[in-house]
């Protein structure tokens, strides 16, 4: 195998179809960028799911004298017995990891601490606005419906709130983004494969004299096809390099910005970025090589 010969053939091929090569690289770059962004969002979502899974809690609010809901108007404030019954019910459930009771004053203190920087909100609230409640940590965040159902109808319970519902909406948004990126990526990848097919066909046509002679003097099929395969692979690789720039940008300008918003630390490490770039590049090179190979089988009969 003469490396220099193969390399010069590839270079000639790429340069001869310069416009087509640029079209291929662009299409591959866009599709891989979208594909990579989709993968990255996917990783971010699962990372955040994990983070929140550990922290998701149920809050069981008890009725007090000022509760506006219909249930509480009817039955009045929760009695001590009702409170005990709810607590023992929660503690008896295997899904529950930990139960903490907060009295009205503790709840109000907690509220004040949390919103200490928005005075207006704190001033508009007074002790008793936030009813006494149970903070319930779950073993598995998936069980929240079971636990909520078990206590929701018990006397003295006003309402059961769940962080999960709020988060789910946010995750749905990210999921939607992910799927949109992946669907567009799939369409683009198909277009890229067809473009590569055409480029390689042109290349094979413009070199038919050389390949004809190679065939006659007994060059092996592999040797004849290799320059074309590598031509496709290199176009895919260059597209992948452009795409990885876009993937890095996605991390720093989209996902990390989203994180800033929430003020918690679930930023993806560079490890997962490199993983996504690696997967995208391999996909790009494989796709281009396979597309070239299938084209050659039709247009470079040996």
């Amino acid at each position: 195998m003469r490396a220099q010969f193969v390399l010069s053939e590839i270079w000639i091929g790429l340069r001869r179809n310069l416009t087509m090569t640029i079209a291929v690289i662009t299409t591959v770059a866009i599709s891989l960028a979208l594909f990579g962004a989709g993968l990255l969002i996917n990783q971010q979502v699962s990372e955040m799911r994990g983070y929140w899974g550990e922290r998701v809690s149920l809050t069981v609010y008890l009725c007090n004298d000022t509760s506006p809901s219909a249930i509480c108007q009817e039955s009045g404030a929760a009695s001590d017995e009702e409170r005990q019954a709810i607590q023992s019910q929660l503690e008896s459930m295997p899904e529950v990891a930990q139960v903490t009771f907060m009295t009205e004053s503790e709840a109000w203190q907690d509220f004040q601490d949390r919103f200490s920087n928005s005075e207006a909100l704190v001033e508009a609230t007074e002790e008793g606005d936030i009813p006494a409640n149970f903070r319930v940590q779950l073993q598995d965040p998936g069980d929240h419906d079971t636990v909520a159902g078990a206590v929701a109808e018990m006397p003295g319970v006003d309402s059961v709130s769940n962080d999960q519902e709020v988060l789910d909406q946010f995750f749905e948004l990210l999921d939607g983004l992910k799927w949109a990126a992946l669907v567009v990526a799939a369409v683009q990848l198909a277009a890229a494969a067809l473009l590569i097919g055409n480029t390689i066909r042109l290349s094979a046509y413009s070199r038919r004299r050389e390949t004809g002679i190679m065939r006659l003097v007994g060059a092996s099929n592999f040797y004849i096809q290799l320059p074309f395969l590598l031509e496709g692979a290199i176009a895919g690789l260059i597209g992948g390099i452009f795409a990885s720039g876009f993937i890095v940008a996605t991390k720093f300008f989209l996902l990390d910005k989203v994180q800033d918003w929430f003020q918690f630390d679930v930023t993806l490490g560079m490890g997962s970025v490199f993983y996504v770039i690696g997967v995208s590049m391999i996909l790009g090179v494989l796709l281009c090589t396979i597309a070239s190979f299938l084209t050659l089988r039709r247009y470079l009969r040996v």
Partner: protein
Amino acid sequence: MIHFENVTKVYPTQKRPALDGVSIDVDKGEFVFLVGPSGSGKSTFLRLVLKEEKPTKGRVHVAGKDLARLSNWKVPHLRRRIGCVFQDFRLLPNKNVFENVAFALEVIGKPRRFIRKVVPEVVELVGLEGKSTRMPDELSGGEQQRVAIARAFVNRPQILLADEPTGNIDPATSIGIMKVLDRINRTGTTVVMATHDAAIVDSMRKRVIELEEGQVVRDQSRGVYGQAY
């Protein structure tokens, strides 16, 4: 060296067979003219030897190999034992004489040192010494055909197939080409040459196989182009 046994070739788009029950034996070191009008089956014969086509019926043996049993990935190795020369030379216009000849060795992976040694020898054998760096468009038709012959022969094939090698060349130059082919034949290479050129066939006095409508109508050692005239 080449052994055809009742070979029939029918192309899918044609009714009449291109070769019809042809049996031919060509021994090692022979020089054979293949004559006959256009469409008589000469080119089909050459294509079958190269395994560019498969016979519809019958057996083809080349260099001791049954081509029907030769798997596709081994065909390149068969073709390395066969050199080919065509009417239209088929040189690469962007390569000079040396590079055109060397190309045949490069693409079968021969080392560069070997190429530098054997290419000048073959260029000299075909009578082009001193013209290694000429481009094909700086050469006459006869010289271009010599380059093509050098390329076909540089790998020292056992068989040289020539499909009307003098078809594009004036008679005086053709004699020079025939001398080169004769020289190659004397090294022990079997030469099969398809031609229309009666003068050349008559002057060489070699074996002549005449095809007509796909059948062998004459096989004569030390023959001439046509007996009828």
